[in-house]
């Protein structure tokens, strides 16, 4: 880039003025979004005369009438335009797909030209997650790239989603990809503390060729996140801000209204038909979902500055983000600041730093899942005739009806601060680096990074709610200290025109120390005081310390022949403190190959093919995400006669080692007319030597021992298409879409046993079936004779006896969607545009335990509001063909509650307006103004009957639902 600028400057200085010329001026914009292009070279053909566009994209030149202008800008198609006597020549430039292949893409330890990469890498533009109301921006990656499975872990602002790449890669170990932000590893929960507006791009590394250089941490894929950097030239300042509301989508399931409820109560004998209270109760009829789950506000403000001289460039930003939750007493807020500096220190040395400090604070709601007290469950279960608010409009203290009779409303307790819990989280993320050019083409880079977190968890209860303790408080402090020192030598040269080499060798040391302590105290001096200093009695303390150390050496070489054939080899050797002494070191490798078919004459002749590359790779990666000390023989504490005792607490396995994932990939990139690009990948991944808790004979002294065993495969196809459907002076329509199919299959478990123990409710983990396979008893119908439930036994015969042994495998029903994807469309007309993103997941199932709580029809549950049609459709007399069993029936789990949680949703709909330059130019200080209105999760199509189908678990019970939001924002450039 700098070279280009230098060249342009030199061109500028050579500018000649000639006599027979007339002025011509114009503006150069990007054909995709109309944004101005700065620094475009404008040359007069056949001369050395030329200029560059200024920050407004405007150029002016004196040229001859018959001159032809050549517009040249890196990454865009070169344009030749005859002036033909015009005085204004406005130009829209198109992206050059061919030169795009020349773009540098970071593959982690080294950058490579896109056209030389043998691996499967997706790039997501940081713009796609900017200014969206999400406390943890990783959730916004859903549907943005093929092969990336993103699923919310509940809807509390800031909750880290579950992400995995190319299927669930493990049974017992972690599924999360490795996240690297500016060269340093971070953990998924860290993203709640990082501002999303600082992100330049996400590079998603998927196959062996891309991930093997990360060795033991590469098995689940790698997500490289690059933050924005400064630019030399004119300083720019940007403000981005929005205000919005989030709310809950009305669930499909409807609870009884007052009339239905009273009829039901009479029908089951809970209330006399002539109960004098009925007329009074009928006066109140609340939709409690709307009463309890209120729309909540969100706002975000970011200011960022990009500036620089020819020696130093700086990016700095500050952010304030605040989002209330739809659950009562839930607030998430964050302030953060970033400074990224690049400095050319000497002619052979570049130095720089990236620094981020963030402070996140949250008030946590009552999220206890299997409780009638959490707001989501309460909204279902409170009687429709219960007025939750007192006459003054505040929450009522003591509820009066049903199962909540004489129960203190926790909405009231929280409103009045009688109880509460929260977190605050201080995050420092920083690294310094130096890059020395030893000889031309050989660079040594060293980078030291630190990732520090202080995390405080607080709870308190005032004496009113903790009478026995006379008030109590708990604090937990934990500190996470993760550092990485990376050294690399990079050699990059093209020999004799035909041979290109891009090689890197390096070493990496990674340490992690995690400690925490907790304390609980009670007996406060005053109900209003919650700090330890005012608590008279300590109750308990606790704490722990864990350490992890990892060291790796690695090498990667990318060799190209005639820009046609590329070979890419990686090797990495990692040592980890997690593994058994005999097996601490592991070696990982990959081989990738690329054929640039467009360079072959027989393809080049087809003009419509603007790009054609065929890639393939195979290799081995590892997963060490299995806790700190899984391999040790450990002793824990006990007592005998009050004397301290030691007992074996973990069976050691000195041979415990890396869980391995072998990856094979073959892919094609096709460009058509430089307008449409298509990428298809097929992958076959095999996880083996899985770290499983193998059930062992009690003679070993344990019931299970960790060992490397079992095999699981993930095979799939990824399809991505991006294209400019329409592109002219005023209209533009760009469409992108991706689709993934993943087939997971467990191939082997313990060898001597083909079913995993303890897989969770309704889940079967068995050889020959996919991970997350459901197994449940089959419900048949309600017996019309007696109103009792009938099931099918394992042979398909009806039975009135519920027996766990009758559970059958529910073919095709798993908790992980095998099909998923997303699509975006961006349509613009002049400055006005509309952007949509649709996501879908197909074949995802979940047990709706919440529904079970709503339909159970017996004395234990009738005190809570029931689903609206229970009274009408329950069995009442012999002969009734009923949907629900008779009153007084049991609470068995069966496939009635196994629901299809697949969904198609309009993740985002944005209407935006870019204020035209000619308007802006009147207000000198403004560079750009963009205003937008955005709705997230506006529409969701699903069979799921609860609040929201998106939840990463086999079982949904009282989960904080993912919400819908509406925001209005503005981006202003100065």
């Amino acid at each position: 880039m700098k070279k280009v600028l230098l060249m342009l400057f030199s061109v500028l200085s050579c500018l000649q003025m000639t006599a027979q010329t007339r002025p011509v001026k114009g503006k150069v914009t990007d054909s995709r979004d109309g944004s101005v292009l700065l620094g475009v070279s404008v040359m007069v053909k056949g001369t050395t005369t030329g200029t560059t566009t200024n920050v407004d994209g405007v150029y002016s030149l004196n040229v001859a009438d018959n001159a032809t202008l050549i517009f040249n800008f890196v990454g865009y198609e070169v344009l030749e335009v005859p002036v033909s006597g015009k005085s204004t020549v406005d130009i829209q430039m198109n992206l050059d797909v061919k030169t795009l292949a020349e773009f540098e893409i970071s593959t982690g330890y080294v950058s490579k030209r896109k056209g030389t990469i043998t691996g499967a890498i997706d790039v997501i533009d940081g713009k796609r997650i900017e200014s969206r109301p999400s406390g943890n921006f990783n959730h916004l990656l859903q549907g943005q790239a093929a092969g990336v499975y993103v699923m919310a872990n509940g809807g509390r602002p800031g909750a880290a989603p579950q992400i995995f790449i190319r299927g669930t890669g493990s049974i017992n170990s972690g599924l999360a990809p490795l996240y690297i932000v500016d060269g340093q590893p971070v953990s998924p929960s860290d993203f709640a503390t990082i501002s999303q507006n600082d992100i330049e791009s996400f590079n998603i590394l998927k196959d062996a060729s891309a991930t093997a250089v990360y060795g033991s941490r590469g098995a689940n894929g790698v997500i490289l996140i690059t933050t924005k950097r400064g630019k030399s030239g004119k300083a720019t300042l940007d403000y981005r801000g929005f205000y919005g509301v989030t709310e809950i989508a009305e669930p499909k399931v409807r609870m009884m209204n007052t009339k239905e409820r009273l009829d039901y109560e009479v029908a089951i004998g809970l209330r006399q038909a002539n109960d004098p209270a009925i007329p009074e109760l009928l006066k109140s009829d609340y939709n409690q979902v709307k009463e309890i789950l209120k729309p909540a506000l969100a706002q975000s403000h970011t200011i960022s500055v990009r500036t620089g001289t020819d020696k130093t460039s700086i990016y700095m930003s500050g952010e304030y983000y605040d989002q209330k939750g739809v659950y009562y007493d839930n607030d998430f807020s964050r302030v953060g600041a970033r400074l990224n500096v690049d400095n050319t220190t000497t002619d052979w040395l570049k130095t720089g730093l990236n620094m981020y400090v963030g402070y996140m604070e949250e008030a946590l709601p009552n999220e206890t899942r299997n409780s009638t007290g959490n707001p989501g469950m309460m909204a279902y279960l409170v009687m429709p005739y219960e007025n939750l608010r007192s006459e003054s409009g505040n929450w009522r203290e003591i509820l009066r009806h049903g199962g909540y009779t004489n129960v203190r409303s926790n909405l009231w307790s929280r409103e009045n601060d009688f109880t509460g819990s929260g977190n605050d989280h201080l995050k420092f993320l920083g690294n310094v680096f130096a890059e020395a050019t030893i000889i031309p083409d050989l660079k040594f880079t060293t980078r030291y990074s630190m990732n520090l977190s202080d995390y405080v968890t607080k709870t308190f209860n005032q004496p009113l709610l903790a009478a026995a303790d006379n008030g109590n408080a708990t604090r937990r402090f934990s500190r996470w200290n993760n550092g990485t020192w990376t050294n690399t030598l990079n050699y990059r040269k093209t020999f004799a025109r035909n041979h290109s080499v891009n090689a890197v060798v390096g070493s990496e040391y990674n340490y992690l120390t995690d400690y925490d302590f907790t304390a609980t105290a009670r007996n406060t001096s005053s109900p209003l005081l919650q700090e330890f200093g005012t608590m008279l009695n300590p109750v308990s303390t606790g704490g722990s310390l864990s350490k992890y150390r990892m060291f790796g050496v690695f090498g990667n070489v990318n060799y190209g022949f005639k820009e046609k054939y590329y070979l890419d080899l990686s090797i990495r050797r990692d040592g980890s403190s997690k593994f058994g002494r005999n097996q601490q070191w592991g070696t990982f490798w990959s081989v990738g190959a690329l054929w640039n078919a467009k360079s072959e004459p027989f393809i080049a002749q087809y003009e419509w093919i603007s790009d054609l590359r065929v890639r393939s790779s195979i290799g081995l990666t590892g997963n060490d995400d299995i806790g700190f000390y899984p391999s040790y023989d450990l002793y824990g504490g006990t007592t005998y006669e009050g004397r301290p005792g030691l007992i074996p607490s973990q069976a050691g396995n000195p041979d415990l080692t890396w869980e391995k994932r072998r990856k094979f990939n073959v892919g094609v990139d096709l460009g058509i007319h430089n307008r449409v690009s298509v990428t298809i990948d097929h992958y076959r991944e095999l996880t083996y030597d899985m770290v499983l808790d193998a059930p062992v004979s009690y003679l070993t002294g344990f019931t299970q021992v960790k060992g490397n065993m079992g095999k699981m495969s993930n095979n799939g196809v990824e399809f991505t298409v991006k294209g400019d459907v329409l592109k002219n002076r005023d209209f533009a329509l760009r469409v992108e879409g991706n689709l993934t199919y993943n087939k997971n299959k467990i191939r082997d478990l313990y060898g001597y046993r083909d079913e995993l123990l303890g897989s969770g409710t309704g889940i079967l983990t068995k050889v020959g079936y996919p991970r997350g396979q459901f197994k449940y008893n089959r419900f048949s119908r309600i017996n019309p004779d007696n109103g009792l439930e009938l099931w099918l036994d394992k042979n398909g015969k009806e039975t009135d006896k519920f027996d766990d042994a009758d559970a059958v495998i529910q073919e095709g029903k798993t908790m992980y969607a095998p099909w998923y994807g997303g699509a975006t469309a961006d349509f613009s007309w002049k400055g006005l545009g509309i952007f949509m993103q649709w996501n879908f997941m197909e074949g995802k199932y979940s047990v709706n335990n919440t529904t079970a709580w709503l339909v159970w029809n017996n004395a234990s549950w009738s005190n809570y509001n029931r689903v609206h049609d229970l009274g009408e459709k329950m069995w009442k007399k012999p002969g009734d063909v009923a949907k629900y069993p008779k009153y007084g029936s049991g609470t068995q789990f069966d496939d009635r509650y196994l629901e299809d949680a697949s969904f198609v949703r309009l993740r985002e709909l944005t209407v935006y307006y870019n204020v035209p330059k000619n308007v802006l130019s009147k207000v000198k200080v403004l560079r750009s103004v963009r205003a937008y209105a955005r709705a997230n999760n506006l529409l969701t199509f699903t069979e799921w009957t609860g609040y929201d189908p998106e939840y990463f678990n086999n079982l949904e019970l009282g989960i904080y639902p993912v919400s819908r939001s509406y925001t209005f924002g503005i981006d202003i450039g100065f």
Partner: protein
Amino acid sequence: MRIFNKKHIIAAVIAISAVGSACNKQLDQQPNGSLSSDLVYTSITAAESAFNGMYSPLYGASYYGRGLTLIPDLLTENLIAGSWFSNSYSDIVRWGFHSGGGDGRGVWSVAYSALHRVNSFLANIDKVEPLPNENAETVNKKKAELKAQAYALRALYMFDLTRMFCKLDLNDPLGLPFVLQPTVETFHARKTVKETYDQIESDLNTALGSIGETNVTRQTLFNKYSIAALQSRFYLYFGKNDLAATAADKVLAGPFGFEADSAAQSKVWINDQGAKEIILKVGLGTTQGSDWSAVNLGSLFINQPDPKFRPNPDFIPSKDLVNLYSDSDLRKGFYFYKDSARQYKDSIWIVKKYPGNPAYTGVYGANAPKLFRYAEVVLNKMEAIYPTNKATAKTLLKSIRASRIKGYDVTIVDAYDDATLLAQIRIERRKELAVEGHYWFDLKRWGVGVNKVREGAYQALESAVGVIAPTDYHWQFPVPDTEMQSNPLMKQNTGYATL
């Protein structure tokens, strides 16, 4: 651009490799919340902690704390479930235990993990060296004392498993699977009953041969008396009467006897104290811990912390049992009382053998399990000597009755013929050791079945299981499914479903 010389390249390469060499030893990280096994046997003090860990299974809720003390009586005519019982031990109540059930698995898992602890201890204790400030002789003596007890504990745990899961028949092929070294191997076949028997016998002899006078006055650790008491029970179970009698004699020669006055006897049952009556009991801490709540067997029999209210027992003694005691029998007052249960208006008998030790405030119905009592050894001797020496058997029977029953006329015993004497010895054993985890094992070795009939409306229907023949397969508990599934060489006991 300056051209760098080779030194710079070398410097860079060195920088990279220096990191490598510095880091290799960093990869050995020790956990901080628990202790790596190779650090346990580095001092005699740490080894003593591991030693205590071999004893701690004794109070486990599925071991003597509750299960192993309750189940043998609950299976027999001694105990019945009230019609209101809370469904605890329901498989036992119904004689419906199966390989997936938790009651047998509880004993199996506690005993085998305890055996692993013993094996680890024995494999490592010799590695312990005296620290610089320690006397080598003292340390070596201590090691020998601890080892002797480890052998005794191994015998105890193996014997408990054998009597529960195997036939008490030295010709039967289905003994225990066992190892004498810590193992990580998961495939283990069952050895024969004879091999199991030989190992227990050998461990007991080793223990007795090396225990010396260690712990001779302590009731919470194995000493020469409690080892001999275990030996007498072990031999008696396998019909080795001579050996049982010889072992019993070693105990009877000790400082034990029957407490004469009822105040001293009540201390045995309420306070778990009695130097004469108790040979070995489980050691519990002096402050509340998980051990206290594991031994709250009394809560199943009385289940009413507040004496203002009537008891709410799960299990009550059968009339069949209570009627064995005459009113002048002191034991009747210590073992039972009459009350009307909260759930049943008429008065019924309530078990009072575990009334709760007031020392364990805060945990209701907790008493230290008493593993060996003087009375049992007397009864062991009585039974062992009966075939060869009726006169001594009668003397012993008279001694126990004279001390338990006020004004007992010992001439009654003199009048017994041989068959009556045997029957009376057995009745006396049942009466003395009721609700202490003996009767089912006694019936098993005597080859006598069970007949539980419903004696009243207060009895849960399912606990009236009727006749269980002595040949029923349930006399051997099933090997737990979890063992069967992880150990393909394991053979299930006859009669139980195999998975």
